[in-house]
């Protein structure tokens, strides 16, 4: 799933202020937490309210689509006529597809797209564990990705910053304003790999010297 986090209301309102009529488009696809019709409606109300507070008027209509990341579908499903601007509830992919499909109408992001990852339970904490590198190493690192779960992405870890199995870098948990609310220590990815491979009796895979990552395949923007 693709994890997104709401942008501050003031930032979003700043995008829309010069316009009178807004189409708020949700996305029912892989964004987590959900960013569908209910959330689009919430943002439509919020933006109308924000305008009223400033003595202005903005009219918002909320809709949603199956997924914003298919331009053929977006072309078919969305009819933005009569609106001057689009607010996308989707990840950065959706925002760019809307701008591509409807070049005459600017589409703005309501979200920051944070990472691809997993959740322990519906709407619980979400964790990043895959950087979509294109050369999956999980088969030989005990099912734990060193490129993602080691902050340094080391191929021959851990580094000296692994103390008591924890990473030297504190993880800062932030609220929706971006303020740090808590600092925690995360597990060292290579410590997890060591223990997993030991349990699997595959420490030969840990001892193995690994060549550096081939970054040529990370060259963005990629296409296949």
């Amino acid at each position, binding site marked *: 799933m693709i994890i997104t986090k709401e942008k501050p209301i003031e930032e979003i309102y700043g995008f829309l202020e010069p316009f009178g009529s807004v189409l708020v488009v949700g996305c029912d696809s892989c964004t987590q937490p959900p960013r569908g019709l209910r959330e689009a409606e919430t943002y439509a109300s919020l933006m109308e309210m924000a305008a009223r507070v400033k003595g202005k008027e903005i009219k918002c209509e909320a809709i949603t689509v199956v997924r914003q990341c298919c331009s053929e579908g977006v072309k078919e499903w969305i009819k933005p006529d009569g609106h001057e601007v689009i607010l996308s509830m989707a990840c950065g992919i959706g925002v760019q597809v809307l701008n591509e499909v409807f070049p005459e109408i600017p589409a703005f992001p309501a979200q920051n797209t944070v990472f691809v990852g997993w959740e322990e339970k519906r709407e619980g904490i979400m964790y990043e564990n895959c950087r979509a590198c294109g050369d999956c190493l999980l088969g030989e690192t005990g099912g734990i990705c060193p490129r993602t779960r080691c902050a*340094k992405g080391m191929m021959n870890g851990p580094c000296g910053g692994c*103390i008591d199995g924890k990473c030297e870098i504190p993880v800062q948990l932030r609220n929706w304003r971006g303020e740090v609310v808590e600092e925690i220590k995360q597990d060292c990815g290579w410590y997890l790999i060591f223990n997993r491979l030991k349990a699997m009796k595959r420490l030969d895979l840990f001892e193995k010297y690994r060549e550096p990552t081939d970054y040529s395949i990370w060259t963005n923007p990629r296409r296949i």
Partner: protein
Amino acid sequence: MEKKAFSELAKKIEAKEFVFTGELEPHRSIDLTEVKEWATTLKEIGKIIAANVTDNPRSDSAISSLVAAYLIQRDTGLECVYQLRVTDRNRLALVSDILGAGALGLKNILALAGDHTRVGTTPKAKPVFDLDSANLIDLIHRMVYEGKDLDGNEIHGPRPEINVGTAGGIMAEPLEMEVFKLKRKAKVGADFIQTQAVFDVNLAVRYLKAVKEVGIPTLIGIFPPRSYAQAEFFGKFVPGVIVPKEFMDDFKKMSEITDKAVRKEKIKEYNVNYFVDFIKEVRKEGAAGCHIMAVGYPDPIAPIIEGVIGK
């Protein structure tokens, strides 16, 4: 695995002399006066073979360790161990800088992962980590012995003549993991290990026993503190360093001496006694030398060295 001793440090280690190295920490400045003074002090002690020049320690930026190491070595005559982190440079820049070191006559590199940029004074910087520390050792070894970079691109003309060291994690847990790490580094060409600072001789001995099978000469890091505050800082704030309670208690007691000169003398004596015993012990266990990390506190250094190997 082809290995040669190019530097004075590597030659002495090869000759089984018990060696001492020191530490130099240039700042975010173009002025190296102070650090050269410290280098001169170390040089004059007579038994310090070489000194490490730190590279953006704790991800706090400082003048290029390559430039600093060159200028210090040129102006003081003290051989330098050029510390090089993979935190800040990709493999092209690393090749460039290793060749630069060769052209400037530097003979030792300590290949480091380096602290993550997030923990330093420039937290917004992008951490590079194109290579890791093992890959950097591999790169240096290939440049020195094969005249090629990791992609097989040729070095034209004479090859750089450089010995390469790696950092040892005394407190790595489990030590089994540390041994695997060092074996990988030995496989790609590490010449020597310098450990982080350790205060508890039992931990140092435990480490030496564990890494013996790796077969690389090990220099144990020590840090004689100049004050109770400094000792306390280590115990409390430097991750992975444990200062024994007895050591802390003794420093606490000495810190209560009101006469400054007496206090200073007492602390020096304590350091000398403590670390002479410490070093004799690790030497017995097969350590190849000692890396003395105290910067700007010369008083105990000469007596400690004399205490171990005589005048």
